[in-house]
């Protein structure tokens, strides 16, 4: 029982227009049976200051990450989370958040690891909703628990581990961090806390395309022609490429994964969630410094 897609013309040119909805679409469909709106933010308290009516909160630190192992929750944990969020296996889930959907895209990527079929992003996130002058509420919904099946997480298709990345060298890599992190001038995004990588720089041969290039000033995704200029002309991606995107912990690269996969239609894109906090601390993996991608290391 999925809900009709947003027919907005600005989405029609994308490979998977069914993955995006506009703020207006969300407002018009609020409360429709089968639709669950999810807010996922960087700031763990932002939802509590006001959110879209009926939206439930899913936090990536406290809900999606395993509390002990550096990994995501398992099938049982996901089923439990879905149940208490009022999400059924056939629900249409629309995710939105702060920082132009940075964390919302991350949550969407995790939903996809569990094969939840109909999960979409609200284009522009909170910023666009607010700029449109739409309302928030403080009222927290109490969803009726659902019977969500226990689905085993599938890590093989859209997720890359460090050994996968080593085997991938020679194929396109996209580094979506800031230019300072890419060149090795620093290990963290400007203004963010140190997250413990022992070395700075980038994976050799990776092209630098900061994630935010994919969004326009109002926080919505850029049109396809501009995305082509950035990723095909700028970073040299071409049809048939097998691509791995990474950042610092895999959250910004989820955003780029969404762009490459659903907007531009590259079928083989994986997100390396270990990202720089893992690679930059691994013993004896190759690292390049400076603003140039550097050569593919010989194996």
């Amino acid at each position, binding site marked *: 029982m999925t809900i009709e897609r947003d027919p907005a013309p600005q989405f029609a040119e994308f490979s998977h227009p069914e993955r995006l909805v506009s703020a207006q679409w969300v407002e018009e469909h609020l409360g429709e049976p089968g639709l669950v709106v999810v807010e996922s933010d960087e700031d*763990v*308290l932002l939802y*509590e200051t006001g959110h879209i009516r009926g939206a439930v909160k899913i936090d990536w*630190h406290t809900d999606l990450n395993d509390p002990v192992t550096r990994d995501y929750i398992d099938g049982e944990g996901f089923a439990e989370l879905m149940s208490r969020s009022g999400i059924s296996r056939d629900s249409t889930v629309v995710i939105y958040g702060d920082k132009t959907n940075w964390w919302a895209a991350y949550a969407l990527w995790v939903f996809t690891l569990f094969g939840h079929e109909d999960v979409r992003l609200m284009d522009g996130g*909170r910023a666009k909703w607010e700029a449109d002058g739409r309302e928030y509420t403080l009222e927290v919904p109490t969803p009726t628990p659902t019977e969500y099946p226990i689905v085993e997480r599938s890590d093989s298709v859209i997720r890359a581990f460090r050994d996968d990345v080593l085997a991938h060298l020679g194929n396109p890599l996209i580094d979506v961090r800031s230019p300072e992190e890419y060149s090795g001038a620093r290990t963290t995004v400007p*203004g963010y*806390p*140190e997250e413990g990588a022992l070395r700075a720089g980038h994976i050799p041969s990776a092209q630098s395309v900061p994630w935010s290039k994919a969004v326009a000033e109002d926080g919505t995704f850029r049109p396809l022609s501009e995305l082509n200029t950035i990723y095909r002309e700028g970073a040299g991606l071409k049809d048939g490429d097998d691509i791995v995107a990474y950042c610092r912990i895999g959250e910004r690269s989820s955003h780029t994964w969404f762009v490459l996969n659903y907007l531009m239609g590259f079928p083989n894109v994986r997100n390396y969630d270990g990202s720089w906090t893992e690679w930059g601390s691994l013993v004896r993996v190759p690292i390049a410094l400076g603003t140039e991608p550097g050569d593919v290391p010989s194996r």
Partner: protein
Amino acid sequence: MSEQQIPSQLAEIRDDFLGFELRDRLQLLLEFANELPELPARYADHPDLFERVEECQSPVFIFIEVENDIVHMFATAPAEAPTTRGFASILVQGLSGLSSAEVLELSDDFPQTLGLSQAVSPLRLRGMTGMLARAKRQIRLKTAV
């Protein structure tokens, strides 16, 4: 080492947090965020005096005033960063009125004692540790003879 004696106004804040379940600790943090006072007029137009706390994910600026050895802390953080505002507000309320020695003696781990690491994640909590470290540094600079 036995538990350090901490000034009563800080102990009170800590005990308030620890008295709640995880979910309600977040609510209390939100109350702190809402209580972060506006800057006094004499500082409102002086962004140059404020130090950016780089450890925080959102732009937060702090400024410490020491008058007759009594500490006053001021902070600004945007409304769309309530967690950071909450952290700043805890320190503004917890440190202001103490003597400079009392603040300098406070354990750098004070943020870790509030029972928030599970509720907000250890990573986010680092922002508050950074704020406290910078506050202490400013006090050291201002009280150096």
